């Protein structure tokens, strides 16, 4: 395979640029890579100018929805006499998504610097990081980095002599996917069950403790300091017109080299596979997700879809979290979708009926089909239930649950029918494993298992 563009032209490490340096999680290394230069630039500007800059740069949310970050900041009412809050969503739990966790593990200061800048812009003096609880190594480094930042005067009172104050509280969650939904996250941070709130009012008006609140994804906030340090024109020179900038694409599954690939928005999966060694040897692509399990799945015919907000949307899916989960021809699509659906049923918060009941019944039907006990008419029933969840649930979890079902039936209906007609699953799960084809699972690790 030859790629039209060499890898070094297709990739653009910015957030990940320092990850191979010595102890990149420390303030010392971060500073050596220009860390906190963006903050210095921001503090020399008026807060409203910082908001305008981020808005003009065109930075869009990296947590899934793609909402313009600067616009979220602009919605915060000023001079309203209420405290303002910044809450960083570090609850990364969307199946397939694995970008914020490696980012925070390698370089937590990039988030902290972004938080100081964002807080300065929206006039917030107390910010929170809501980190999912199941990642203790990341929590450890985040706690240490916050302590380092306090000591260096990047947090606390009168930051760098600017007169502005900021405290950061690192808050560990306790295992609930729904807390990635911003209003459920706020309820959870207030010490309640993590269930979504009715909107409006939006968090910008009544968020944490009913005060104006910005909720941003980790990668969105970490992308702010480079914009301050290098300018909006540089940022807009990367990516596409409506989706400017760089982003982390997370490649996983049946590929030769899974990992984090930071590139300008708009790269295609074909390009990424070409420069990274492709689908694992001897196999071919069957289906993939552009942005986690909640984004409708793609197939081979979508390899040339530009992976930006517009491109993926026009092709019938969503850019989501850019979690590129790749499955080859050994994978049973019914098994994959059944497992995702079990996940949504497990994580449904129970607040609204379509999601709570619908996901439960979807699991019953899918398990029956996977086990070869499906009935004719089950596929219509699946689509009917999915349709009763999608768009009719309280929050996006329900829409996400419907996505894999509707999209897989669109692309692989024959495979579902085969399960029903032949009364069995035609796939061998052993063939999909990482160790398939090795003489035994005792055989030594392949290169993908070698840690740096």
């Amino acid at each position, binding site marked *: 395979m030859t790629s039209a563009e*060499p*890898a*070094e032209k297709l*990739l653009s*490490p910015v957030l*990940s640029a320092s990850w*191979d340096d010595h102890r990149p999680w420390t303030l010392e290394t971060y500073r050596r890579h220009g860390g906190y230069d963006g903050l210095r630039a921001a503090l020399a500007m008026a807060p409203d100018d910082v908001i305008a800059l981020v808005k003009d740069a065109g930075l869009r949310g990296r947590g899934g929805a793609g909402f313009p970050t600067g616009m979220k900041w602009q919605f915060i009412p000023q001079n309203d006499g209420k405290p303002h809050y910044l809450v960083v969503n570090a609850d990364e*739990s*969307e*199946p397939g*998504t*694995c970008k914020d966790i490696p980012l925070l*593990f*390698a*370089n937590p200061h990039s988030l902290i610097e972004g938080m100081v800048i964002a807080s300065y812009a929206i006039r917030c003096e107390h910010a929170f990081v809501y980190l999912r609880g*199941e*990642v*203790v*190594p990341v*929590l*450890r480094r985040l*706690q240490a980095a916050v*302590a380092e930042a306090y000591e260096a005067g990047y947090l606390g009172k009168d930051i760098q002599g600017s007169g502005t104050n900021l405290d950061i509280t690192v*808050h*560990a969650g*306790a*295992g*609930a*996917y729904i807390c990635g939904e911003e209003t459920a996250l706020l309820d959870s941070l*207030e*010490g309640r069950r*993590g269930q979504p709130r009715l909107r409006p009012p939006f968090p910008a008006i009544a968020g944490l403790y009913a005060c104006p609140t910005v909720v941003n994804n980790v990668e969105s906030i970490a992308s702010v300091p480079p914009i301050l340090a290098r300018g909006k024109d540089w940022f807009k020179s990367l990516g596409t017109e409506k989706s400017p900038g760089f982003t982390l694409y*997370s*490649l*996983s*599954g*049946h590929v*030769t*080299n*899974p*990992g*984090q*690939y930071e*590139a300008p928005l708009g790269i295609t999966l074909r390009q990424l596979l070409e*420069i*990274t*060694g492709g689908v694992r040897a001897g196999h071919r692509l069957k289906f993939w997700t552009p942005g986690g399990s909640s984004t409708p799945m793609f197939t081979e015919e979508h390899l040339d879809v530009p992976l930006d907000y517009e491109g993926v949307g026009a092709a019938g899916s969503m850019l989501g979290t850019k*979690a590129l*989960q790749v499955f080859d021809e050994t994978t049973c699509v019914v098994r994959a979708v059944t497992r995702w659906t079990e*996940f949504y049923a497990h994580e449904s918060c129970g607040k609204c009926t379509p999601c709570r009941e619908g996901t439960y019944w979807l699991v019953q039907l899918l398990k029956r089909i996977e086990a070869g006990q499906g009935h004719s008419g089950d596929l219509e029933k699946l689509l009917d239930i999915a349709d009763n969840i999608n768009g009719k649930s309280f929050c996006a979890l329900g829409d996400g649950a419907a996505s894999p079902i509707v999209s897989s039936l669109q692309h692989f209906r024959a495979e579902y029918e085969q399960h029903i007609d032949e009364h069995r699953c035609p796939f061998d*799960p052993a063939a*999909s*494993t*990482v160790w398939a084809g090795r003489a035994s*699972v005792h055989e030594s690790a392949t*290169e*993908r*298992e070698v*840690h*740096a």
Partner: protein
Amino acid sequence: MSSTELGLPALPAKPYPPEVEARLAADARELISRYPQSRSALLPLLHLVQAEDGCVTPTGIRFCAEQLDLTTAEVTAVATFYTMYRRRPAGEYHVGVCTNTLCAVLGGDQIFDELSEHLGIANNRTTEDGSVSIERIECNAACDYAPVVMVNWEFFDNQTPQSAKQLVDQLRAGQEVHPTRGAKLCSFKETSRILAGFADGRPGAVDESGAGGAPSLAGLRLAKGEALPGTPGAKVVSPRHEGTEA
């Protein structure tokens, strides 16, 4: 007939012994002080009582309620919502095997089945000696290292059934075990204390295991002109350590 058979409500939980109560109350004050409103400290406090008991007990719930001026019903409603709060004691080492789609397909299902059989315990159960508990977990944000196993919420990446069984054998034998990403394992209770918001005081714990494995650095290395494994055609533009400005 016992009260259980009659279905009578449970009696009010006993408090902690005074010395435990005093120690935990000091921790609770510290945690509550970090938030503008005290109730925000409930999740940290539940981690704190789990650090004391290995699970969330009626006594722990009573403690949280008293600290925050809530009812035990309010605290119970929250504790039962989140999967990390356990109603049965975890083992000293709590082993989570990711069986969400991607890890499951890549081998997580086989790892869980073999581990469960090897230990002789089912999902969410603990071995008789209290050393190891196992749980099927959802996606843990490490898909580029699949199949993934977590022990006390530290990463054990790229596992096989063999490596996972060896891992639990080492844990049960009391051997020192290091995750691929994270610090040398401490007990489940000690881990819960870090989750409550108290820094890991062990020297060097923050620095252990580097910035990440090969997948975390794959894109950066490729951008610097290094060839990735299994890519014979990859073009080497500027190998690392040769001082070119890529």
